[in-house]
């Protein structure tokens, strides 16, 4: 077995056991990264960073942190000191932070190195990676008998493609309305968005601050638990960071679900969703029953309003957050205009892509005088109802099972209507609006040989039950399919 096909847990244990050095791991991955540029997954490669962390791990052998010897891919949304951090946007081209995000600093403290920065939809706005200024990431997966380029999903598409193509053992992602879970499902890997506030947002380029949350993407549930433990933790620099100890999620992993009730929300049964996806959902219920859980039907009555609520709140927050890109303090500046006002407008016209402009326009509109209450305040009220739906549901269940996405991966350029693209996150967005932990785990392949994911939503702060149910599915699904190398 090659080093790059091992899980993070296997690499960690093998390194600790002296089977191989951290340097060997880093070199294997650096070579794999350099050999997969066709996928466009990395925007910057940092082999020397991975080697330096490996040297430190080798020197401290046995005494290093929980991720000593493990090199990771980092989504381009995380500020990395001295290394380009552009959020997939032209407006941040060349931006080299003089500081490190809390999450990546935590990973480094645990001993991890960095393989490079991972491509993503511009400012995390997208579900297909097609809005990146660097061009789309190609999924390593292809439909059977076809060489049509498929999307790895988005916005954490580079992360998903890298983990799936074995050019990173794990990666950071961020999830505002499904940006970890939908790409994880499309790429046949695992990804968890923890409870809002578990991971510090400090040093993560802001999109919609009340929704943005970092989380890990990796090949197994255990690897997600290992990474999340290192990423999470209280940070005084983020006013919404939760001042709570980080649970020992890995040590407490158990696929024994005896006594657990699995909620099956009837509103998620949508006729237009392919039959294969609903069939996999039914299979998932059987797997959790086999693990000892009892399925219960639940109702989340405001589900159909979650997406429209999200598409008011997220653009509103984005229009405010992205006001900072003014051509003065960092990033692009358009020259050749006469006034300061013209410089702002010209810089933002040249620096933002079409989807980002669209969302800034929507956000500016719903926040503008005369419309604020009708749109933004109304959406915040409906958001409260969505949150109440979940609170009520968790009185009668411990974890909720749904499909992750309403389709398998689609082709690059196949979805051009913005509204149709937004529907990708129909199952993911409600948990985001409620700040709940949620995870995608591979369940199987569809008729064309593409991965499909199952989605678990937990109650506030209960990542453990989400991970445990994910583990139960992982053990029963036996998902070992990997894309055949064509790149």
């Amino acid at each position, binding site marked *: 077995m090659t080093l790059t096909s091992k899980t993070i847990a296997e690499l960690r244990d093998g390194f600790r056991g002296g089977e191989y050095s951290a340097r060997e791991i880093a070199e294997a991955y650096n070579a794999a990264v350099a050999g997969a540029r066709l996928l466009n997954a990395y925007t910057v490669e940092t082999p020397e960073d991975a080697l330096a962390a490996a040297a430190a791990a080798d020197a401290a052998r046995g005494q290093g942190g929980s991720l000593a010897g493990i090199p990771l891919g980092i989504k381009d949304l995380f500020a990395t000191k001295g290394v380009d951090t552009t959020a997939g946007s032209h407006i941040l081209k060349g931006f080299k932070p003089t500081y490190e995000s809390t999450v990546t600093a935590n990973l480094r403290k645990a001993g991890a190195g960095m393989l490079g920065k991972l491509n993503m939809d511009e400012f995390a706005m997208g579900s297909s990676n097609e809005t990146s200024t660097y061009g789309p990431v190609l999924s390593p997966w292809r439909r059977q008998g076809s060489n049509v380029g498929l999307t790895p999903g988005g916005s954490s598409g580079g992360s998903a493609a890298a983990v799936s193509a074995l050019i990173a053992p794990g990666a950071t992602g961020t999830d505002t309305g499904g940006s970890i879970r939908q790409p994880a499902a499309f790429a046949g890997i695992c990804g968890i968005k923890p409870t809002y506030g578990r991971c510090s947002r400090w040093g993560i380029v802001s999109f919609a601050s009340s929704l943005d949350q970092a989380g890990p993407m990796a090949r197994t549930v255990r690897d997600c638990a290992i990474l999340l433990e290192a990423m999470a933790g209280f940070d005084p620099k983020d006013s*919404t960071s939760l001042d709570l100890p980080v649970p020992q999620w890995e040590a407490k992993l158990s696929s024994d679900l005896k006594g657990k009730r699995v909620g099956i929300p009837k509103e998620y049964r949508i006729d237009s969703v392919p039959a294969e996806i609903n069939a996999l959902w039914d299979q998932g219920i059987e797997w959790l029953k086999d693990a000892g859980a009892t399925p219960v039907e639940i109702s989340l009555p405001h589900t159909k309003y979650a997406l429209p609520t999200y598409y008011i709140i997220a653009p509103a927050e984005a229009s405010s957050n992205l006001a900072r890109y003014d051509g003065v303090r960092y990033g692009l500046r358009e020259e050749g205009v006469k006034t300061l006002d013209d410089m702002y407008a010209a810089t933002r016209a040249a620096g933002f892509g079409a989807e980002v402009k669209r969302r800034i326009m929507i956000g500016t509109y719903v926040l*503008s005088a005369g419309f604020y209450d009708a749109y933004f305040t109304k959406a*915040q009220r409906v958001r409260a109802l969505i949150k109440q739906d979940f609170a009520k549901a968790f009185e009668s269940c411990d974890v909720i099972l749904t499909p992750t996405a309403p389709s398998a991966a689609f082709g690059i350029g196949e979805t051009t209507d913005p509204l149709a693209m937004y529907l990708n996150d129909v199952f993911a967005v409600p948990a985001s609006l409620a700040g709940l932990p949620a995870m995608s785990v591979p369940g199987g392949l569809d008729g064309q040989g593409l991965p499909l994911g199952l989605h678990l939503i937990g109650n506030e702060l209960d990542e453990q039950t989400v991970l445990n149910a994910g583990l139960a599915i992982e053990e029963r699904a036996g998902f070992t399919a990997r894309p055949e190398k064509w790149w």
Partner: protein
Amino acid sequence: MSVSHDQARHIAKLARIAMSDEELERLVPELNAIIGWVEQLAEVNTDGVEPLTAVIDQKLRLRDDKVTDGNIRDDVLANAPEAQHGFFAVPKVIE
């Protein structure tokens, strides 16, 4: 409610994004499709429902009112498109 071409131009101005008439022409129907779609929230009865302000219930922390960082001027200016004499430089505002 639907957005007119003139309203869209006004929103673009508020958002400080330069847009040509052709761009606005393309954008208006897209904005209207999205706004028409989100307006389905009007059918939800939210009487007596407080707008959600914190997704996970927690108290905002206060810190002591003292400087906790600083003396990093060069770091702050390091990524500026133009910096002069320790300041951000911008096009002349006053004639």
